[in-house]
C-alpha cells in the first residue's frame, strides 16, 4: 500500500512554492550558519547580530508573503494561510527583539544559544501550519526541546539548571499524554489527518463519544501545560524566575502565541469543539486560571513571578474565548501579540534595572526593591514599564485595552455573560497586581543610593524596550488592517 503520508509531489517545488517557503528556508540557513558560529566559539556580539538579522529577515519575509501569496498547501501536512503567516511573523519579531539583549559573561561560554533559538522559532512558526497530528507532534517537540536547553543556558548557575530540569521533566511527561491522546484519535478514526478525524468525530456515538472526549481532554491539557493554563501552570513561575531573562521573555510570549493559534486552527479543523463537554472543559480551565491566577499574582513579591502569573491570567482570558471556532483567531492573535510585546518590555526594563542596581545577571528583583531605581534610572524607562504594565492591565488609551476589548466582544457576541463577568473581575483583580507593582517605583519617595555603572552596557535591553513599545503601538494601528484582512481570510478559508 503506498504511503500516502509523504506523497511524491513534496519533493518538487514549483516557482511559487519557493516564494511561500522562503522564510522557512531562511531560518534553516540561519540555523546552519549559527551552528558553524557556535562551533567557532564566536563572541556574543557576532551571535547577536547574526541571529537578529536572520530572525528579522524571516519576519519581513513572512509579512511580505502575507500580502502577495494566497493560501499554500504542502501535501497534507502543511497549510500556510494568512493567519499562520501573521503568527509566524509575530513569533520571529518577538524572537528577534529578545535576541537583542542576550549579553553578559554567562553567555560567552554557551555560544550555541543562537542556533537553539532559531530552531525553537522554526518549530513555533511551523506549528500552526500543521494539518495532521503527527506533524503537530513533531513541530511541538522541535519547539520544546531547544526551549529546555535554552532555559539551561546559565549552566553554572543552579536556578537556571533547576528551571530547565523542571521544564524538561514536566514537558516530557506531558508529551506522553499528548501522544496518548493522538493515538486515541488514531484509534477512533484510523488516520491522523484532521479531515478524517473530523469525519470520525461527527460519526462517533455513544461510548465512543466519551473516548473522543478523553482524547481531546488529554491533547488539550498537554497544550494547556505549554500555555500555562491554571491547573497545569505550576512550572511557569519557576521557569520564568530561573531561566535567563531574554529566553524567559521570548518563551512567555512566543509559545503562547503559537500554541494558542495552533489550538484554534487544529481544533476547529478537526471539529472538536462540538464534542459535548469540550467547550465546557476549556471554559472551566479559562475561568479557573483567570480567577486563581489573579489571586496568586496579587501575593507575589518578585516581578518575574508576578509576570508568570499574569501570563496565566491572560492565557485564561484567551481560553475563555477559544471554543467559538475560527472567527476567534484574529482577536486571539492580536491580544497575544500585544501581551508578548508588553512582557518583553517588562523583562527588558527588569534587565536594565538589574544592571543599574549592580546585581548579578540571574538575580530577580523584589518589586519593592524598585524603589532605589528612581534615582538611578532615567524616568524614561519607568514610563516605559508603566506603559507596559498598564497596557497589560487594559487601561484604555493604551494598546492592551483595544485588544482585550475585541477579545471580550467575542464573549459578548455569543452572549456568554457569565464568562464576561469573570473576565471583567479578572481585569479588576489584574488592576490590583499590575498597579501594586507600579506603586513602589512611582509613588514612594526616591532613596538616593549611589549610581553603580555595571560592566555591561544596557543599550541592548533599552533597544529592546523601545522597539517593543513601538511595535505594540504598531499592532494597535495594524489592527484595522488585520481586521480587514480577516474578513478576506475567512472568505478564502475552508
Amino acid at each position, binding site marked *: 500500500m503506498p504511503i500516502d503520508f509523504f506523497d511524491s509531489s513534496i519533493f518538487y517545488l514549483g516557482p511559487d512554492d519557493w516564494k511561500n517557503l522562503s522564510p522557512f528556508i531562511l531560518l534553516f540557513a540561519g540555523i546552519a550558519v549559527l551552528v558553524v558560529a557556535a562551533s567557532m566559539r564566536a563572541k556574543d556580539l557576532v551571535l547577536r547580530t547574526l541571529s537578529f538579522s536572520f530572525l528579522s529577515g524571516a519576519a519581513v519575509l513572512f509579512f511580505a508573503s502575507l500580502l502577495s501569496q494566497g493560501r499554500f498547501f504542502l501535501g497534507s501536512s502543511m497549510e500556510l494561510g494568512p493567519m499562520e503567516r501573521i503568527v509566524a511573523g509575530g513569533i520571529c519579531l518577538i524572537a528577534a527583539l529578545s535576541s537583542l539583549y542576550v549579553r553578559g559573561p554567562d553567555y560567552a561560554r554557551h555560544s550555541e544559544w543562537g542556533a537553539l533559538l532559531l530552531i525553537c522559532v522554526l518549530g513555533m512558526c511551523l506549528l500552526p501550519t500543521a494539518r495532521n497530528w503527527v506533524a503537530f507532534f513533531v513541530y511541538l517537540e522541535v519547539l520544546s526541546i531547544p526551549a529546555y536547553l535554552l532555559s539551561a543556558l546559565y549552566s553554572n548557575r543552579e536556578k537556571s539548571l533547576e528551571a530547565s530540569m523542571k521544564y524538561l521533566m514536566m514537558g516530557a511527561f506531558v508529551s506522553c499524554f499528548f501522544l496518548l491522546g493522538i493515538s486515541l484519535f488514531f484509534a477512533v478514526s484510523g488516520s491522523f489527518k484532521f479531515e478524517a478525524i473530523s469525519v470520525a468525530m461527527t460519526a462517533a456515538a455513544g461510548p465512543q463519544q466519551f473516548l473522543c472526549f478523553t482524547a481531546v481532554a488529554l491533547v488539550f491539557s498537554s497544550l494547556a501545560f505549554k500555555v500555562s493554563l491554571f491547573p497545569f501552570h505550576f512550572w511557569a513561575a519557576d521557569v520564568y524566575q530561573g531561566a535567563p531573562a531574554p529566553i524567559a521573555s521570548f518563551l512567555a510570549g512566543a509559545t503562547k502565541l503559537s500554541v494558542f493559534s495552533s489550538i484554534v486552527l487544529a481544533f476547529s479543523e478537526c471539529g472538536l469543539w462540538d464534542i459535548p463537554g469540550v467547550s465546557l472543559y476549556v471554559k472551566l480551565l479559562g475561568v479557573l486560571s483567570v480567577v486563581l491566577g489573579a489571586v496568586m499574582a496579587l501575593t507575589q513579591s518578585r516581578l518575574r513571578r508576578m509576570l508568570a502569573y499574569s501570563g496565566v491570567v491572560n492565557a485564561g482570558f484567551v481560553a475563555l474565548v477559544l471554543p467559538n471556532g475560527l472567527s476567534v483567531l484574529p482577536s486571539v492573535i492580536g491580544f497575544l501579540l500585544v501581551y508578548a510585546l508588553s512582557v518583553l518590555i517588562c523583562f527588558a526594563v527588569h534587565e536594565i534595572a538589574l544592571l543599574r542596581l549592580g546585581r548579578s545577571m540571574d538575580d530577580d528583583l523584589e518589586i519593592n526593591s524598585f524603589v532605589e531605581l528612581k534615582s538611578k534610572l532615567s524616568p524614561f524607562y519607568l514610563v516605559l514599564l508603566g506603559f507596559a504594565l498598564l497596557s497589560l492591565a487594559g*487601561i*484604555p*488609551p493604551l494598546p492592551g485595552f483595544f485588544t482585550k*476589548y475585541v477579545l471580550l466582544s467575542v464573549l*459578548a457576541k455569543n452572549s456568554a455573560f457569565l464568562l464576561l463577568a469573570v473576565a*471583567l473581575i479578572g481585569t*479588576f483583580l489584574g488592576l490590583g497586581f499590575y498597579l501594586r507593582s507600579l506603586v513602589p517605583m512611582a509613588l514612594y519617595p526616591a532613596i538616593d543610593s549611589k549610581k553603580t555603572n555595571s560592566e555591561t552596557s544596557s543599550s541592548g535591553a533599552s533597544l529592546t524596550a523601545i522597539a517593543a513599545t513601538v511595535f505594540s503601538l504598531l499592532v494597535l494601528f495594524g*489592527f484595522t488592517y488585520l481586521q480587514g484582512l480577516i474578513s478576506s481570510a475567512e472568505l478564502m478559508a475552508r
Partner: protein
Amino acid sequence: MDPINTAMLIFWPAIFAFLLFTFRKNKKAAQWANMVFHLPWFWFLYQSCLLWRSSTADGMFPIVFNSDFFPLLKSNFALGLDGLNLPLIGLNVFLSFCLSLYALGKEKLSSSYLALFALLNAASVGSLMAADAFVFYIFWEAMLIPMFFLIGIWGSKNRVYAALKFFAFTMLGSLAMLAAILYLWVQPDIQSMGWHSIAQLGLLGDGLWSPRFWVFCGFLIAFLVKIPAWPLHVWLPDAHTEAPTGASVILAGVLLKLGVYGIARWCLALFPSIAVLDVVSFTMKVLALAGIILGSYGALRQTDIKRTIAYSSVAHLGFMLLGLFSFQLAGFQGAMFQNIAHGLSTGALFLIFGIIYDRTHTRELSDYGGLGIVNPRLSMLFVLSVMASIGLPGLPGFIGEFLILNGTFVLSPWFAFFACFGILLGAVYMLRIVRGMIYGETSSVLKSHPIKLSFSEWGSIIPMIIAMIVLGFWGQGLIAVTARASATIIYNLQGEILR
C-alpha cells in the same frame, strides 16, 4: 469658528502636557509656561461658545467634530457640544487656570505634576465632549491614570492607599460600563457607537429586566461610583484628604461633575423609558436622600477638615442626583446649575484650606482657631465660600438647591421635605468648621505658622469668589444656557411617564 477649535479644546492641553515634560530642569519656567498655556485654551473655549451659539441644530446632542480614526470598532471620533457640557468645560478651564495661578512659586509642584494635570484636563474635557460611547469610555478611563499618579505621588501620608482605593472603585464602576458598551457593540443592528445611533436603537426591549435595563444599569453604576452616590462613596473622603490641593480642587470641581453629566447625558437622555420606571427612580431618590442625610452625618463626625468638606460634597451631590431624577425641568436645570455652583464653592473651600495647609501641615480642626485675627481677609473669603456651600441665598448654591427641591416637590413631596433637613445639617457641620477655624483665640499652630498669602495665591482665589458672587445673582444667564438641551431631555422623559 470652524469645528477644529472644539477638537483643539481637547488636544491643546494634551500638547502642552508633552511640552511641559521638556521643562524638566527648571520648575519656575514650567509653572509660568503652564499659566501661559491656559490663554490659548480660553481662546478655543471662546470660539466653541461662538460656534455653539451660532449653531441652530436643535437635535439632542449636535455633533460639532467628526472623523473616523478607528473604523474597526464601529466608532468614530465624534465630539458634541450643547448646553449641558459647555458650562462644565468652561468650569474646567476656569478652575485649571486658577490652579495654574496657585501653582506659581510652589516648591513641591514639579513640571511632571503640571504635565499630569494637563493630561487630566484633556481627558476630562474629552469625556465631556465625547459623542461616541467608545470614545467616551476611553477618555473616561484615561482620566484615572493622571489622577492616580497625582494623588499617589504628591499626596500626603497614606496617599498610596487612597490612590489605589480611588483607582479600584472607579475602575469597578467603569468595568460595568465596559460590559454595557460591549453589549451595545455586538448588537446586530447597530451601525456605529455614536450617541445618536444608540439613542435610536430599538430592539433592546423595554420594561424592568429587559437588556435595555441592564445596559442602563451598566452606565448608571459607573456614574454612581464617580458621583459618588451613597453606598459607593467610601473612596471620596480618602481621595480628598490625601490628594494635593490642586488635585482635590479638580477632583471636586470637575471629576465628580462628570458623574452627574454622565447620568444626564448617557442615562437619562439615552434610555428615558428605563429611567422613568418607578423602581429605578425610587431607588435613585432613596440613594440620593441617603447620600444627603448620611453624607451630612458623616461630615458631622469628622475631626479632619478636608474630610468634612469631602463628606459635604457627598451631600451636595446627593442633591444633584435628586434633581436629575425629579423629571422636572426645574429639577434638571437645578442639578446642572448646582453642578457649577458646587464646583466653585467646594473648589474655593479646598483651595483656601489648601493654602492654609501648605503652611500649617495639619488638618485637625482642634489645631486651628482664631484665623480671623491672624488673617481677617482670608477668613472673610473662607466664610463667604462656606456660606456658598451651605446654600445661602444671594450665592449660587441656593439657586441650585432651590430649583432641585422645587422640581422634586412636584412628583415626590416627601423626598423634598426630608432633603430640606440636609440643608439644616449642612449649616450645622459647616458652621462647626467656621467656629473651630476662624473664631476663638489664635491657636498655637496659627501663631507659629504665619499665614501670609503670596500675590499668586490671592490671584487664584479672587476670581473664584467673584465668579461665585456674580453667579449668585446673574444665575439666570447660566440657566438659559442649559435651557434648550435640558428641555428636550425632560420632554422625552415626561413623554415616557405619560406612556
